[in-house]
């Protein structure tokens, strides 16, 4: 199989380039991460990329694979056209090879205060939710923060410092939708303005690439609806 991989080392003074590798003998059902690990072990130990769990749970190995963001560990080699072109996540500063600096992504995530805010005294035993209230969080809590969605979003490319991005907005809605959270007004006020929420033009790149099958565009629409409800 042929691979074309983005290479960049800030220390060697060279421009970023695409490097070709060829490697065969993969098991049926092998994933792209298996190929990257073998390339590193057998062909080029200098190749850098992030990985951890290897089964689509940790979100470390998000890459741009044949022009589309996805997780290397859950992308089957068999379904990829050759040469398999692998680049770092688009729009993020490259630290080295396929490793990007996700600081802006995490900054936007922290900015939506992704934790439960309760003003009442804490209950003595536990916070109670009905099954229906709990069900509202399905499709929201599963996010693994891999960054595939936000780095596939042109609005996030142009305004990564001001637009929260689909991943952070999905989490904003996850806490707005939570029956136990009591900071709805503060959360909505924080998202107001022309940039933080409203740079989303609903082109749905985020929903298209999400490896967990989540729908940030729908969550963003729900936030807009809730804002409207609070005003009228």
């Amino acid at each position: 199989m042929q691979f074309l991989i983005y290479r960049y080392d800030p220390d060697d003074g060279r421009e970023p380039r695409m490097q070709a590798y060829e490697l065969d003998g993969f098991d049926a059902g092998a994933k792209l991460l298996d190929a990257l690990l073998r390339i590193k072990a057998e062909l080029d130990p200098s190749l850098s990329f992030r990985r951890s769990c290897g089964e689509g749970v940790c979100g470390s190995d998000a890459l741009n694979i044949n022009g589309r963001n996805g997780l290397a560990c859950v992308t089957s080699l068999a379904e990829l056209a050759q040469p398999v072109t692998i680049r770092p996540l688009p729009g993020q500063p490259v630290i080295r090879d396929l490793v990007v600096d996700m600081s802006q992504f995490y900054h936007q995530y922290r900015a939506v205060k992704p934790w439960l805010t309760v003003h009442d005294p804490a209950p003595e035993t536990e916070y109670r939710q009905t099954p229906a209230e709990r069900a509202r969080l399905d499709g929201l809590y599963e996010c693994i923060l891999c960054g595939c969605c936000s780095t596939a979003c042109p609005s996030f490319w142009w305004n990564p410092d001001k637009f929260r991005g689909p991943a952070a907005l999905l989490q904003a809605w996850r806490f707005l939708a939570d029956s136990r959270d009591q900071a709805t007004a503060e959360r909505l006020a924080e998202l107001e303005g022309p940039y933080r929420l409203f740079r989303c033009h609903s082109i749905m790149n985020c929903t298209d690439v999400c490896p967990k099958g989540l729908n940030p565009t729908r969550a963003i629409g729900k936030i807009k609806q809730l804002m409207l409800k609070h005003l009228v």
Partner: protein
Amino acid sequence: MSWRAASGLRPWLLQRLSAVYLAAYLLFSVVVWVGGVADFHHWQAWFAQPLVNAASLLFLVALLGHAWVGTRDILMDYVKPVGWRFALLSLFGLAFLISLGLGLRGLLQVGA
């Protein structure tokens, strides 16, 4: 949060609502025009009807409001230098105002 402070929600809502009206007006127009507009006098008489005239005025306002929000969105996304953004926003704003003036003049003349 108040309507005054809703600087993100207001333009978004304006664009959504105007889009609904634009679609309805255009559909209505297509039906009428496919039905047949014989000549200029027929056309003039059609726009001179008070309801059609008022609906067309509203269409003009909705169209320009819709276009203004869209243009502003595009310029906010792509034009970073403040001077350029201000110049382009002013240019488009002026062009839209002139369009509004010309459109108003035409419609009011026909309607009068």
